[in-house]
């Protein structure tokens, strides 16, 4: 039996948002290249961390994978099914298997619906449970995410940010999905609550055999939960490897810069830590620089970087995968 061990296969995914002008006839004048050709796989039961600065296209990647945006180009396979070609009812049914925990726990819950409505709606839509059965299932889900089951009749505004995020998690679990995109599920929360939510997500993964794409904007958060980590810069993935390797032997100058900003708990090492301060701003995704996207800020930039796109290659040793896109390793 040869079963594909990859649950998700993304190849050369692009998501461009057109910028239009004109009052009556909208003319496209440019594209925001939010995601510009990313490729990676996620194995069953694995957590892939996706890290990058604000605005580099992490949320867009997650949404494009789940077909909440229709990708401009590229392919997304879920259990060998090409998602970009699914439409209408087929796509609707596919949504049972893949869910998203949204970045903003305040904006992503309908203020007009009770918790019971928010969490239970997917069950109804997919004809899984109704009435009393639905109510019981919702209460069980609330218990699973550590909320009082008697909260079903309350409205989102009656909850704290952490509780709301738990509601979002309960909602995403309702359909027993295989794959969940966790879009910065903790960055809107207090530090004290962050650990609770991360631990809960880990427990749930154990319990239900979930596969995660875990998005975060700094490296300190993802090391703990991820098996592998992808680093994203301006719409492209620059490096993917095992979570330990990434911390111990980062290859891409951008990854090195990000890591240098992560505080180290050991005071001796922390004192020796050399911060790499990146010069300049992130270029606009409307008009990315030629060649390597990072060439405008890279401390180790070479002439070739400003002209030629680096190739996406595996430079791992001893059978370990270590993908990087950088001319230094070509």
């Amino acid at each position: 039996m040869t079963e594909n061990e990859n649950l998700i296969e993304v190849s050369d995914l692009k998501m461009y948002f057109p910028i239009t002008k004109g009052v009556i006839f909208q003319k496209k004048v440019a594209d925001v290249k939010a995601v510009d050709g990313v490729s990676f796989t996620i194995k069953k039961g694995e957590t892939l961390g996706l890290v990058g600065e604000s605005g580099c296209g992490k949320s867009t990647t997650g949404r494009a994978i789940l077909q909440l945006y229709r990708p401009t180009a590229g392919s997304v396979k879920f259990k060998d099914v090409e998602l970009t070609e699914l439409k209408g009812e087929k796509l609707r049914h596919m949504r049972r298997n893949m869910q998203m925990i949204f970045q903003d726990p305040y904006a992503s819950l309908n203020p007009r619906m009770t918790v019971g409505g928010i969490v239970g709606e997917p069950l109804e839509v997919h004809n899984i449970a109704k009435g009393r059965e639905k109510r019981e299932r919702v209460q069980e889900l609330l218990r699973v995410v550590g909320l009082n089951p008697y909260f079903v009749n309350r409205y989102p505004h009656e909850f704290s940010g952490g509780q709301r995020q738990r509601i979002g998690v309960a909602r995403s679990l309702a359909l027993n999905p295989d794959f969940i995109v966790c879009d910065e599920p903790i960055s809107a929360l207090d530090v004290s609550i962050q650990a609770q939510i991360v631990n809960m997500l880990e427990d749930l993964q154990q319990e239900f055999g979930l596969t995660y794409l875990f998005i975060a904007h700094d490296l300190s958060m993802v090391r703990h939960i991820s098996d592998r980590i992808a680093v994203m810069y301006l719409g492209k993935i620059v490096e993917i490897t095992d979570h330990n390797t990434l911390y111990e032997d980062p290859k891409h100058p951008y990854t090195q810069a990000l890591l240098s900003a992560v505080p180290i708990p050991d005071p001796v090492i922390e004192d020796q830590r050399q911060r790499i301060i990146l010069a300049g701003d992130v270029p606009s995704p409307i008009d990315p620089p030629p060649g390597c996207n990072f060439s405008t800020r890279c401390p180790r930039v070479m002439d070739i970087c400003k002209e030629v796109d680096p190739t996406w290659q595996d430079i791992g040793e001893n059978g370990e995968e270590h993908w990087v896109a950088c001319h230094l390793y070509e």
Partner: protein
Amino acid sequence: MLQFIVRRILWAIPVLLAVTFFTFALVRAIPGGPFDFAGDRSLPPSVVANLEAKYHLSDPLWQQFCSYLIGDTVCRPGDDSGRASKGVLLGDLGPSFRYRGRTVNDIIATALPISFQLGMMAMMLGIGIGIPFGVLAALKHNTWIDYSATLVAILGVSVSNVVLGPVLIWFFALKLGWFPVATWAAEPLFSGIADKYIAASEQIPMWVNIIPKPTVDFFMHAALPVFALGTALSATIARMTRGSLLQVIREDYIRTARSKGLRERAVVVRHALKNSLIPVVTILGPMFAGVLTGTFVIELIFAIPGLGRHFVNSIGNRDYPVVLGTTLLYGVAIVIANMLVDITYAWLDPRVRLE
């Protein structure tokens, strides 16, 4: 809920008192008086003096306001010159200066039901057309459907009833002959009750007049003015609905709803529409109050004996009690409309509490 309503009514009292005071002061500040007629219709000074004495217009203003408010028995003790006013606080709006022998209460009781019927039907038409078109335009954002709906809405707002009314009359009433040209044809549904009052030659109470008998004649007469007024309202409602829905549809929780695997129609109806109606309801309140108390232009064009003309004519006539009465009525309508708006808010948005 009941507590909320009671509190709102209590709050409305000082507001309405202030409205009464300022209207009283302002209308008296306009030069001229109710009995100044121009040219050969002008009255001899002795007659004017008599009339002014009869209506106490030569009394000090504070006394006039006092007796308007709380009645002659308190403010003009021992006065037996004519009929004594009971005062606004007891619901007596006083006599009209221009329509001899008619009280403001009578005028309102006769004219308001007509305006109310016209306004109610126009509102229903406006909402019935406006909201669906607004939703359609928003869902088909930036397509030809959106553009044509927007164009029609802009036309509806900018082509005033002064133009639309006569065009409708010319085409549908005169050319095609489908509808009567003008006037209103409402009979009270409870004609038995009305007949009793007529037999006793008393004023028919307002609630009897307000409910029309649904005859063909009634609807034929109503068709054109309701259409003219309703389309104008629907244009505003459609624009509001479109704008608000466009905003809501970009919200994060709409994406959440999609991610649940809902059908697009369910996303719109269950998640987007109710949220987007909140600003629409906000404008519906004052719109309701304004339309139900009469619209001058439509009533003038279609010769409908509603309340709208009294708002305007009474100022020209310096018919002080009518000015005050209609203004106060409008104030009450606004207060009630806003209360209904707030109740609707609480239903649309659980974050709003009626406390």
